[in-house]
């Protein structure tokens, strides 16, 4: 089908995400009927070899997975494998999958996995390395699948000891988002350095006019404030594994956290200490925040015509550099692993599902070529990010969106952005608490970090 994206349809699309979720079955049936399976059949494998198998896949309720669920009938037609989807909110999906993996019941053949959990998964051998599946010619047509096309930063985030454990499906990078009208009025440019980001925020901050200079996620959580802080920490020259020992305190950490606390205290709305990204995006949509640094995917929220008052006034830039000249973005993605507790045939059927979901064809069909209104902004393929149709669609989000995202993905990612150790769940939570203690003034920056270090040391001892 031919889809001609225009700015208006894109904007309308953002709004209709909710509407779509009510009617996926309908669209699904329509798609299944005229689905063209030829692009898949070009792969030199027998898609039907596990016909009749049933697998359950846990995902989060997000439009990028909804689109995939809508296309699931095509997968069924292609392979004869039944896929049942279970939607679990992001806050619970980690716990639910860990419980499933520890109890070895094999409830979820695969699930949308947090890349930070692969070290834990691999240490317990809960999931299988994917290399054997990728190398098996009866299961994978390497020339068709083109693993190298899957964004390298995300693949490395989902690897442990050089082995890929999860196949990236959708991801994001953190970038600067700013109001070009407010910036232009003051003659400001998007920040090149963290120092500049602070001075921009100072210049724009006017709480009496209900405009605050900046906002970053402040709410405690391994995926919230401990999602933003690691970038600052790395930019200030921090090294999680200093001398092979996990270290979260020290001068670099203190400087990084002090910058974060300073920015939040002086130039962010007071409530931002308890905000997650949707709160920031909402405030920005209402015109009360002049700039923020968060996931590029939040662009769909601030471009929602029903809610946003700032459409057409938004532009994007990469992370500002730290004192050492380094930019560090997040390397978040949802990856699909294979549950090791499954019987062999199911594992292979699961692999076919993962291969299908991560293939360039399915990625395109769930993104710019998706029939429904919601288009994905986190496709896993470098080739799609260069596809003029997709780029045109994405540029509807505002100036410099594609460029900032692509440059961040290619140049600003850092695999050691967060400490990739099996103890991450405990470390992430401890750090999140420490950061919030500093943000709220419960503890000084140094005391909070030293306390976190004291708590983390016994966690790392065997």
């Amino acid at each position, binding site marked *: 089908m031919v889809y001609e994206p225009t700015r208006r349809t894109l904007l309308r699309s953002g709004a209709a995400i909710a509407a779509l979720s009510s009617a996926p079955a309908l669209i699904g049936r329509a798609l299944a009927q005229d689905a063209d399976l030829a692009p898949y059949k070009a792969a030199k494998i027998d898609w039907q070899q596990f016909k009749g198998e049933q697998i359950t896949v846990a995902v989060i309720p997000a439009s990028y997975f909804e689109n995939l669920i809508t296309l699931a009938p095509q997968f069924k037609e292609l392979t004869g494998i039944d896929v049942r989807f279970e939607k679990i909110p992001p806050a619970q999906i980690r716990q639910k999958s860990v419980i499933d993996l520890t109890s070895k019941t094999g409830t979820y053949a695969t699930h949308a996995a947090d890349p930070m959990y692969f070290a834990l998964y691999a240490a317990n051998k809960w999931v299988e390395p994917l290399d054997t599946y990728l190398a098996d010619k009866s299961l994978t047509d390497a020339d068709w699948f083109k693993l190298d096309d899957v964004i390298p930063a995300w693949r490395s985030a989902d690897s442990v000891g050089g082995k890929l454990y999860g196949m990236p499906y959708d991801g994001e990078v953190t970038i600067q988002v700013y109001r070009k009208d407010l910036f232009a009025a003051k003659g400001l440019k998007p920040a090149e350095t963290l120092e500049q980001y602070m001075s921009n925020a100072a210049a724009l901050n006017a709480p009496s006019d209900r405009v605050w200079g900046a906002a970053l996620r402040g709410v405690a959580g391994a995926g919230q404030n401990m999602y933003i802080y690691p970038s600052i920490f790395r930019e200030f020259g921090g090294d999680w594994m200093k001398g092979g020992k996990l270290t979260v305190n020290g001068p670099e950490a203190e400087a990084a956290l002090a910058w974060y606390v300073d920015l939040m205290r002086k130039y962010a709305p007071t*409530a931002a*200490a308890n905000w997650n990204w949707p709160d920031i995006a909402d405030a920005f949509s209402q015109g009360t925040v002049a700039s923020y640094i968060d996931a590029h995917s939040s662009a769909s929220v601030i471009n929602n015509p029903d809610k946003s008052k700032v459409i057409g006034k938004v532009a994007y830039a990469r992370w500002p550099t730290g004192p050492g000249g380094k930019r560090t973005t997040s390397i978040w993605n949802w990856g699909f692993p294979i549950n090791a507790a499954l019987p062999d045939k199911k594992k292979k059927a699961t692999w076919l599902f993962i291969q299908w979901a991560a293939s360039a064809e399915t990625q395109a069909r769930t993104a710019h070529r998706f029939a429904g209104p919601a288009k994905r902004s986190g496709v896993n393929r470098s080739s799609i990010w260069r596809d003029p149709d997709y780029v045109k669609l994405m540029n509807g989000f505002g100036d410099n969106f594609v460029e900032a995202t692509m440059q961040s993905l290619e140049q600003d990612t850092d695999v050691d952005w967060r400490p990739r150790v099996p103890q991450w769940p405990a470390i992430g939570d401890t750090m999140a608490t420490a950061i919030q203690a500093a943000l*709220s003034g*419960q503890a000084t920056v140094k005391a909070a970090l030293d306390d976190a270090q004291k*708590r983390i040391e016994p966690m790392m001892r065997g």
Partner: protein
Amino acid sequence: MTTTDIASAPVGGGYDRLLARRERRFASALLAPAFVALTATTTFPLLYLVWTSAHRVDLAMPFTNGYVGLENYAVLLADDRFWSSLLVSLVYTGSTVVLQVVIGLALALLVMDMKRGQGWFRLIAILPVVLSPAVVGMIWRTFMLAPEFGIIDFLAINAGLGSQNWLGEPKLAMLSVIAIHTWQWTPFAFMVLLASLASLPDDIYEAARLDRASAWQRFYRITLPLLRPAIVMVIIMRTMVALTAFAAIFTVTAGGPGTATEILNLYAYRKSFTELSFGYGSALAVALLIVTVLISGVLFALRRAK
């Protein structure tokens, strides 16, 4: 027992004992299913919890798992965060229970003298109790306490206090969670105390009035002593619930900012399910169990000592 009465008359002691034994056997047969179900669902998990607390069960480092005896408890006693969360638990429990009883009693005394509309008042007052604590948490977090937008903050601004970061500032956050719990559960104390007030005999008050006892004397010398059993019962029930509270705090602050509102229960949850350290998490849960048993033991003892 009617059965034994009839049987004992003509036959005598031997048959009587036989019947009694049969009845006991029959009774235990009837009791058995309930007993087994109860043991399986309460006692067994409890023992398993204690058993787990004597092990290292750390999902992040499965190779270190094994029996450790009392090590988790030794770590616990030296853990600052355990002590601070215990303190938060005690402050939270103490202040919410006192507030509930005082406000509940005051409301009950007021409403007792209402001639009309008492039924409506009771109906409205009971609403918070029937809400799920998680829902209460969400309502307070978003509608009531959000800076700039919340109702409480709006009132604070208009009262000249300025916009406050209710859930982002350690002391205010603690005050907020105490207020939320009190808001939700005071109606319970109110209802119980109102019911007991209504059952107090009028003649004592009449006699007191004839003796020209002042209103305060009547309250202090008559009402309070007569209400004592009800008050103690409310205190016991509310204390146990407050010590094991979870949902409302979890949704409002999740123990934050930092660890300012992290009650012991929340700490045990985080250790187990966020940090995946089940052995130590179980030890924390056992510690909470011990604290709860001790405190309710003291309260029950107080109740018995007249």
